[in-house]
């Protein structure tokens, strides 16, 4: 029996949904007879049992409030104390701002190899070797990476690259409380500590949005970009933007999609006036459905699109709004 662990995250005092995606990844590596799955949950959370109902066999819950997801050192110490008892073959975290901070810190501490932002994982049945595949070189190649020494084999996986398993209320719940190890309180006190949260004015979470409408240089000026905002609110969509649009001050940086912004994989990406520089495409090419509207028939984004519409976005946006008159956004959780 091989062991696979995931690093669960919390959001507003509950288990963050991205953790359920990690459990689906872990379960995909083998049958229940072949692998057991444990979730390590640092920080207070009201519903650790949800991890079991979504695929974990066991939850290690280190519920001390000193573990707020911000300070990396105390989380590394929690893992250190668990590793002293047993080391899993595989450790997965989400490639979120939290996972991409905590896991590298832990990897350096524990001498672990770490692969970032994987989109495919495969556990070799015979050897137990984890094949970690990720887009590299701006998304132009897929690189498969192996850990050559040390356990666990660690990787972060791209959010929204796998759907959570259906919640099964019949699954057994096993939650083991983990005490704060020696030194962790002091490490947490060194910081960083959260002083205040500032909700984004416009974006509720581009990274998690199932539907993203995005705009680029084709909007020509800031006033043009406002048309996109109208469509987004009609569709209940989040707004993405190319680097040009952000650099020109049409929209704020948290909306930027691409190598120097966010990498996203929504179910549906609807792009207007974005030609598709590599730096942008690398940030959205794994979207489920890609629809692009552009005046230039040679726009590189068309090669990546399921539907390529050659036309004038200023003409098409009002028409699209009219065509959507009889529709409303689907209810989403």
């Amino acid at each position, binding site marked *: 029996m091989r062991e696979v662990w995931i690093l669960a995250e919390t*959001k507003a005092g509950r288990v963050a949904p991205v953790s359920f995606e990690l459990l689906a990844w872990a379960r995909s590596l083998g049958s229940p007879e072949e692998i057991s799955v444990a979730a390590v949950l640092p920080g207070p959370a009201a519903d650790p049992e949800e991890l079991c109902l979504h695929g974990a066999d066991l939850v290690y819950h280190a519920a001390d409030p000193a573990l707020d997801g911000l300070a990396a050192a105390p989380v590394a110490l929690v893992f250190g104390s668990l590793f002293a008892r047993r080391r899993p073959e595989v450790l997965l975290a989400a490639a979120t*701002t939290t996972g*991409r901070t905590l896991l590298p810190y832990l990897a350096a501490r524990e001498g672990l190899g770490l692969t970032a932002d994987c989109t495919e994982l495969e556990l070799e049945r015979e050897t137990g070797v984890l094949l970690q595949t990720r887009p590299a070189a701006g998304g132009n190649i897929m690189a498969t990476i192996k850990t050559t020494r040390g356990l666990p084999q660690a990787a972060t996986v791209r959010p929204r690259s796998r759907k959570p398993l259906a919640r099964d209320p019949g699954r057994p719940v096993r939650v083991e409380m983990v005490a704060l190890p020696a030194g962790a309180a002091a490490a947490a006190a060194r910081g960083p500590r959260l002083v205040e*949260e500032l909700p984004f004015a416009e974006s509720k979470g581009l990274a998690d949005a199932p539907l993203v409408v995005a705009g680029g240089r084709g909007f020509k000026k800031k006033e043009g970009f406002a048309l996109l905002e109208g469509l987004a609110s009609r569709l209940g969509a989040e707004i993405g933007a190319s680097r040009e649009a952000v650099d020109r001050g049409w929209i704020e940086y948290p909306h930027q999609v691409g190598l120097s912004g966010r990498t996203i994989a929504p179910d549906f990406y609807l792009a207007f006036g974005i030609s598709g520089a590599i730096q942008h495409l690398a940030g959205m090419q794994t979207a489920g459905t890609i629809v692009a509207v552009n005046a230039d028939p040679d726009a590189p984004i068309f090669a990546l699109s399921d539907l390529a519409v050659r*036309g004038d976005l200023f003409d098409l946006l009002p028409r699209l709004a009219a065509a959507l008159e009889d529709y409303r956004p689907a209810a989403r959780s």
Partner: protein
Amino acid sequence: MKILVLVKQVPETDSLAIDPETGTVVRSEATSIVNPLDLYALEAALAIKDTRAEARITALSMGPPAAAVALKEAVAMGCDDAVLVTGREFAGADTWATARTLAAAIRRLGPFDLVFCGEKATDGDTGQVGPEVAAFLDLPVVTYAGAVELRDGPGGLVVRAERVSEDCGQIVECAAPLVLSFCKAVGEPRLPLLAGKKRAHDLAPRLLGLAELGLPAEEAGSRGSPTRVVRIASPRLTRETESLDARSEEGAEAACRRIVELLAEKGLVVPKDGAGREGRVKP
């Protein structure tokens, strides 16, 4: 006050294009630049120096001798000195070995009050080196930082930073020394001034090799890396594309109907109550 900024030389990605026929990269003349996200780390450090004239900024890079060009740009922007870790033994390092080497160099050059880096490099795209360097140096780390403010607290220097997470901004505080990785929220990086360019022209970065770092050869470069690339494959970058010409009125109407149809197919929009089957597809 001493600040160290990590700088990486990367290939310019904006000069690349995808061949729409084959879906492969057209590498016309890929030039090397300073990793664009490192410019925000440099800007954050230089902004501190604007108000605290005593601050000294060292730019540090690991790479081939040609990476000196990136360090010269950092000096042209206003860094005080530049150090390049270079040598055959460092080639092929993964993030673990890179961070191990950079941390050894920082120890050797330090101590520093602040260690800055970009959120990630646009070539490797991992964002792992910053937190890994922090772990090797046993320092706290703040990632995805925007603007920072410094304050002299009773126990020493305190950094207040705005951090950009997925769904909110966060004001965080941490006492120095610490590592910060910066994202674009820092604001526009400054351009090099003529005086800086002149200084950069005359400056040769200080070189550090394996011996100076006191690192065993088996802990650097590809030998020291716990990960290996075992396979490279071309992703299917192109999709089966349905193309519509929306330059005529009929074309535009048909394209919009098709977009709505796709949105409905994927369950992202549903017909409003009362909008029956007739309402779904307008004549």
